[in-house]
């Protein structure tokens, strides 16, 4: 749909369209929010801020760009600002049961999702916020070109950073397993 058509839409229709797009890509917002925060309250705050910023920018959304790429940029920018403490945290404080994206699962499934997210956080916490953004997008099968577009760096820079990240993760984990082995020997 062209932007001119979007402009002519009644507000309710534009709102519906935004919700439909967002629903289709809700996993992006959820994963980014959870990987840049350490508790459910912070995660709910990030989700809400991402949704509000996306809604505000939706008028300017250029449909020649993939919606997922556009949403990644917003989600990562909000999450990184939050991570660096630059977001206006005091304004938020969203109760977790009132989060914009909710986990619709039984208690055991909820625990499984939390455990899996905890595992991913454990792997990624040793990375800085920009490297984390590269890894998140890479694992979601985005090309170096798309990652470069969202980060505002060159494709070759993305490739170099990605190789460095892989080496670093591997090195830190082999160090950890060496320590564990030496403790077991003792």
């Amino acid at each position, binding site marked *: 749909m062209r932007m001119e058509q979007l402009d002519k839409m009644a507000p309710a229709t534009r709102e519906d369209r935004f919700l439909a797009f967002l629903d289709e890509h809700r996993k992006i917002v959820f994963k980014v929010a959870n990987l840049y925060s350490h508790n459910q309250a912070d995660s709910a705050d990030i989700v809400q801020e991402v949704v509000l910023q996306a809604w505000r920018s939706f008028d300017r959304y250029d449909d020649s760009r993939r919606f997922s790429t556009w949403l990644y940029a917003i989600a990562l*920018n909000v999450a990184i600002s939050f991570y660096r403490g630059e977001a206006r945290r005091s304004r938020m404080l969203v109760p977790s049961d009132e*989060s914009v994206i909710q986990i619709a699962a039984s208690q055991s499934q909820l625990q499984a999702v939390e455990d899996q997210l905890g595992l991913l956080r454990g792997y990624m916490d040793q990375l800085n916020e920009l490297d984390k953004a590269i890894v998140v997008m890479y694992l979601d099968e985005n090309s170096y070109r798309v990652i470069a577009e969202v980060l505002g760096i060159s494709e070759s820079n993305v490739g170099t950073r990605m190789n460095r990240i892989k080496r670093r993760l591997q090195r830190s984990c082999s160090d950890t397993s060496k320590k564990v082995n030496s403790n077991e020997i003792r």
Partner: protein
Amino acid sequence: MKFDDLERAWQECDRMLDAGIHLNTRRLRSCIREDGELDREIDYSAPIHVVQKQIKQTRPRKWAIVQALEDLAETLHSALLRAFPNRMLRRNRVHRG
């Protein structure tokens, strides 16, 4: 651990989230309708490199002082946490000797 392990963990998480999360449409609609206090100076859909630079430039100087104090407090806190058990262990060793 190899990068493959991280990829596997990611895929597993992705699979769980496919059916495991949903939009709270009622909450979402009310949020976007009362979108009054939002930071309108910065376009968050621009590249990260550009947006983070803009945020740095537009934030007030007061914030930088607060941030520096927070960093200092965090450094002191973690240094104390590291030093305390070491001191206790050393003290115990002296007593046993």
